[in-house]
């Protein structure tokens, strides 16, 4: 029984340690991710029915292909990859650690035949003299050597940047940490919620994408909202000035929030996402009496005019130039609903009061612009974010180590009458080969060695 379990464990271990599994998982994740960009994600059920037919649509829903990046099998693939990374790393870490903590310092024949760079000479001078010259040379040009005596021979061993071998482990650890951060965030946080606050308004609840309310635990107040435009009419900058009231105290006072400049309080972050108009200001002039009145029309609501007619704003733009290049400035599409008559709809432009001045029935309308804005802020909490950034830093350090450092080793065996130098490097062979050849020439010179003919 015991051998049975242990052989299952061994098989599993070998399975997860294999590089073929890595390649399979990476290509599998790539293929599966491609499918997710071609099939709409998180769309309404009807969309799939229309596009692919009812049976296929039900099949997609059953396999969560309509939200595949959050499906159980996508997480399974990622989980398998994580286990694969950890297994491969553990196996290699042991070997790398042993190589660094207890390096082979004696250059025997087996080791010599396994190394890619080897040079041998005949020595005229004594072993002690050669040893001291070679040690000095290594100390100067490479690194201070360890000296080992084995029988009649002296072995010198020097190395550089042994920790380079851990670069690849830092890299992989970074990936595992990132994935951990992703899991923490998805379990403990929320994203893609939003609040819409009118100027001078406040709220203590955010709305998730699916419409559920999320209590913030404090109140956010929008003191002011402003938007500025380029001379082309495109928005240049829009900002909300927010205050936060927590437990009756104003903890944050008048902090500006812009796109790319969010505000964080108690782990919840507010991002300037967009804006829309809450109320529109008109000046209406009675055509008969000439008396002008100001009328404030709230978005989506009908407003009453002094004579009982109603007016509603159906659509508005900040800059009408995109629709009607000859005109500029804010514009609204209004509908006037006379008390006893047929409705008429027309466009009014703030900068061009003459346009459609004859419409509107009993009143002459003049559009003054937006009187109150709604700011739309995206709200999110993600406690996994610092973990993800930590993983990214580890990943970048790992890349740096792997590409900029290399583990190089040099052995010199000094016997009576014969000297052998051998070396290896874990990467950048051409640079190391050049260095090795130059070092060999210098060693030959300082120790008065001669080539073996």
């Amino acid at each position, binding site marked *: 029984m015991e051998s049975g379990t242990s052989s299952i464990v061994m098989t599993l271990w070998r399975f997860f340690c294999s590089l073929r599994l890595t390649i399979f998982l990476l290509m599998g994740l790539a293929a599966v991710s491609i499918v997710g960009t071609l099939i709409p994600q998180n769309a309404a059920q009807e969309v799939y029915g229309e596009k692919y037919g009812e049976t296929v649509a039900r099949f997609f829903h059953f396999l969560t292909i309509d939200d595949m990046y959050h499906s159980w099998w996508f997480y399974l693939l990622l989980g398998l990859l994580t286990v694969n990374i950890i297994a491969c790393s553990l196996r290699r870490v042991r070997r790398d650690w042993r190589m660094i903590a207890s390096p082979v310092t004696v250059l025997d024949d087996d080791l010599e035949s396994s190394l890619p760079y080897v040079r041998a000479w005949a020595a005229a001078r004594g072993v002690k003299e050669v040893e001291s010259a070679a040690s000095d040379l290594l100390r100067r040009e490479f690194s201070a050597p360890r000296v080992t005596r084995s029988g009649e021979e002296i072995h010198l061993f020097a190395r550089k940047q042994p920790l380079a071998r851990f670069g690849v482990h830092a890299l992989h650890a970074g990936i595992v940490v990132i994935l951990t951060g992703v899991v923490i965030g998805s379990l403990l946080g929320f994203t893609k919620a939003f609040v819409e606050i009118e100027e001078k308004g406040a709220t203590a609840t955010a709305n998730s994408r699916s419409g559920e309310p999320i209590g913030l635990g404090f109140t956010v107040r929008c003191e002011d909202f402003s938007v500025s435009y380029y001379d082309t009419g495109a928005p*240049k900058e829009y900002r909300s000035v927010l205050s936060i009231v927590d437990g009756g105290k104003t903890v944050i006072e008048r902090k500006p929030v812009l796109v790319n400049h969010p505000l964080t309080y108690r782990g919840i972050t507010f991002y300037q996402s967009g804006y829309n108009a809450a109320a529109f200001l008109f000046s209406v002039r009675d055509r008969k009496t000439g008396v002008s009145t100001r009328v404030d029309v709230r978005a989506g609501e009908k407003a009453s005019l002094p004579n009982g007619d109603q007016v509603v704003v159906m659509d508005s733009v900040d800059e009408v130039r995109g629709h009607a290049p000859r005109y500029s400035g804010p514009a609204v599409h209004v509908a006037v609903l006379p008390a006893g008559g047929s409705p008429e709809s027309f466009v009014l432009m703030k900068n061009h009061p003459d346009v459609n001045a004859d419409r509107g029935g009993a009143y002459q309308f003049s559009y003054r612009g937006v009187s109150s804005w709604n700011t739309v802020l995206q709200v999110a909490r993600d406690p996994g974010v610092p973990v993800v950034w930590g993983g990214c830093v580890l990943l970048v350090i790992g890349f740096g180590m792997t590409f900029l450092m290399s583990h190089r080793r040099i052995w010199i065996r000094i016997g009576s009458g014969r000297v052998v130098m051998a070396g290896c490097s874990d990467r950048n062979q051409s640079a190391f080969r050049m260095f090795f050849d130059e070092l060999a020439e210098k060693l030959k010179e300082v120790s008065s060695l001669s080539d073996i003919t």
Partner: protein
Amino acid sequence: MPGTQSGMLSVTFFTATTLCYFLAMVSYVVHLVTGKRPVGILADVLAFFGFVLHTTAIGLRWKASYEMGYGHVPLSNLYESIVFFAWTVVLLYGLFEVRYRYRSVGAFVLPVAFLTMAFAQYGAPLVRSAGSLMGSEALGNFSIPAGIQALVPALQSDWLLYHVVTCFLGYAGFAVGAAVSVMYLVRSRKGTRDGRAGGADTAGGILSLSPPAEVLDRINYQAILIGFPLLTLGIITGAVWANYAWGSYWSWDPKETWSLIVWFIYAAFLHARLTRGWAGRRAAILSIVGFCATVFCYLGVNLLLPGLHSYGGG
């Protein structure tokens, strides 16, 4: 069209750059076929001169944006990104040529630079006609506005520079790797299975000067070793910026997803090389597949799939 003097000048310089790259491309091909050294030197000079013109043009455009009142790094729309991509390809090619000294590789890499620049200037009408033939509305309305535009608020961030530069340097590495892989496949088809037909040419007159297959394989590997960490940095800077601007460092937006797909493919490539049997032909094919995915990530996503990056596409 850019209205200031620097702006007009930059347009002239871009056109001159395209011409230079065309002449360099032709010279490299002639050099590859005939083996005449002076032609190769001429090609180098033309490519280098083109690169200087190119850098100046980008600098002038940068200056022009300040003169127009909306100063920003010239990396904010499709036109600027296409032109910058061509610049990174030539830069990376230059570094490889200095390191390996194989001019014949230019015959395969300069076409990428030239075609990219030509696409920036003249590609839109072609795509539009293709679009109306295929009945695709997105392609039928395709345009590459070359004017210097003010940055919408979402793009007003330093991260624009870091994210775009790292991504494009990554793409450039993959482009060089793919170009060299094409060379490898052409060469190895005429020789033995893995192209070891001998260093001197048994592959026929046209490739009389191309480097041996093993060198091409190594250049491919080195190029991807440069591109992959840069792409990783590109994805990371993109995620940091997205977190700042949109409250979420990863939304499975098609552009984000495709950059991850490209990352998976090249990660598979690097791991496959550790297994025996994945050098040579298979590596060359995977490198080309990866670059196709890269091109789709860069352009296809903007054109064919909706998402957060659509305004960045111009």
